[in-house]
């Protein structure tokens, strides 16, 4: 369904990505991990059609991205950038329903069906009770859920999230990770999210893509990635595997 084939991208003089190839063909929760500057954001932007690859192709349902109509593509692939922050105060429901934009004609306004979809998205994210509130009245966790609902409102098949867990406190990190798992399971879409938090990613995701200096170092299920020797090689820190609650957790070894 979504094919990234030998994609490269440059940010000025710095190579953003080189020769990245990955295929997503079934609903799954994918964690995109790697150090800062490894190309996570760039990859997401290339798939979201925010950037165009310098070389290589991204294909969705067999068609090249550039051959897709912008709005048609947006109905199928949703994107949430880092730190979304609207310039002017907005209510939650207005933020979420604006996610229906790809469905609107040039002069059309949101219809009841659009509000319906928005409501469902908010319900999925357990944020319906926040509909009337303004964004600046909410906590960080609540705000993230509203923005997730905004992306979900368009009922896309693929959802790309750039570091959605950043700046969330611990309980919200788990909550949100669980929410993403829930979304994939209930709606059968594919969610790809960039994150720094290996443990939480590994706990819930089906697959991990590890980026390193612009290349895709590993594309494997979490069990394979979350091994001390792999982690040392990829991330450069020492960790020990700890079994807890039927899962493997990596704990940094403190010298």
């Amino acid at each position: 369904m979504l094919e990234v084939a030998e994609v490269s991208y440059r940010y000025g003089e710095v190579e953003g990505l080189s020769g990245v190839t990955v295929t997503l063909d079934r609903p799954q929760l994918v964690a995109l991990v790697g150090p800062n500057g490894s190309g996570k954001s760039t990859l997401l932007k290339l798939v979201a059609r925010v950037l165009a690859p310098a070389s290589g192709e991204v294909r969705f349902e067999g068609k090249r991205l550039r051959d897709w109509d912008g709005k048609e593509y947006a109905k199928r692939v949703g994107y949430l950038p880092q730190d979304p922050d609207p310039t002017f105060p907005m209510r939650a429901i207005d933020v979420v329903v604006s996610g229906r934009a790809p469905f609107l004609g040039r002069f059309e306004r949101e219809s009841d069906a659009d509000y319906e979809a928005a409501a469902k998205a908010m319900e999925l994210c357990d944020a319906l009770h926040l509909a009337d509130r303004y964004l600046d009245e909410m906590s960080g966790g609540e705000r993230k859920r509203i923005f997730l609902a905004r992306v979900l409102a368009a009922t896309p098949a693929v959802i790309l999230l750039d570091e959605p867990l950043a700046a969330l406190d611990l309980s919200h990190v788990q909550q949100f990770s669980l929410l993403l798992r829930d979304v994939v399971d209930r709606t059968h879409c594919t969610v790809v999210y960039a994150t720094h938090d290996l443990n939480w990613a590994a706990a819930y995701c089906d697959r991990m893509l590890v980026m390193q200096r612009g290349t895709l170092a590993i594309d494997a299920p979490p069990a394979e990635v979350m091994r001390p020797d792999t982690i040392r090689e990829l991330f450069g820190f020492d960790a020990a595997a700890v079994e807890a609650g039927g899962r493997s957790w990596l704990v940094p070894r403190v010298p």
Partner: protein
Amino acid sequence: MRLWISGSAGSKLLPLHRRPHNRLGLILLALILLGAIALAASIGATSLSWRALIAGDATTRTIFFDIRLPRTILAALIGAALAVAGVTFQTLLRNPLADPFILGVSGGAASGAAIATAFGLARRVPGIVPPMAFLGACAATGAVFLLARRREYTDPTRLLLSGLVLNAFFSAVILICFALSPQGDLTAALKWMMGTLFAAQWSDVVLLLVLLIVTMAVLVSIANDLRLFAFGEEDAKSRGVAVERVKIIGFITASIVTGAAVAVSGIIGFVGLLVPHLVRMIWRRDFRDLLPLSALAGGTLVVLADLLSRIVIQPSELPIGAFTAVLGVPFFLMLLRRSR
């Protein structure tokens, strides 16, 4: 993606949550604007008798139909133009402090006018000031745009910076023109810059009306896209918005209508900056609704400001820019205090 959850979650949203067109707001503001126009048209330096007007007295008719009415309507059009440009720039640049003059348009227009008056052109060719001002505004717009455009991308920050720098440059041009020009020209040019609707005539009204209608049509056609800029350009782009195209169209349209307004009446401050905020504070909606609401509110503000400028020291007149501030700022402060 199978979203779902059966059942109608939407019904859980109270009807108030849904907000299609703001018909009530539009009608209210339209009525207020009409009221302001009626008020302004009935008050002036000379007191007119309605009976004389209906009876067809020539002097009364001349004053009302040839002088006062076109001036009042022009005031409304100028206010609408500036407010519309202001809300467009604020949305496009994601900057609440943007106003129609921030991108060098005011400096360019004033320079055009200063050059026209400084070298005696205005005396030899009457009526040359507005076209020169308009040309200056367009030149400024073009320059700012070229400066800010880099590799197919128009950076909003660079737009603002270029606008600032260009305004400073134009200030220098104006000062030089003034230093070189005879005393009388200097005064007239200065007063033009402070804003006046003195010589408003129907030809100005028609011109600006047509331009404003075209502007509104263009902006409405990109409104659905432009309002998404509030979430960031990358976000908008991922939603299928042709960001560069919308930016260019919005920028050029708003600049042209501003240039036309300044060419006709000089520089009238506060309207483009304040009115969008006033409207936003009352109605809290996005660009699609703010656009017509700002147009109506801006028109009302300038009509009332022009009325005051005409009657405070009659038969003389004060610059209109003073009154847009006098009327707008207290209202703004009051709303600021009341807001959350």
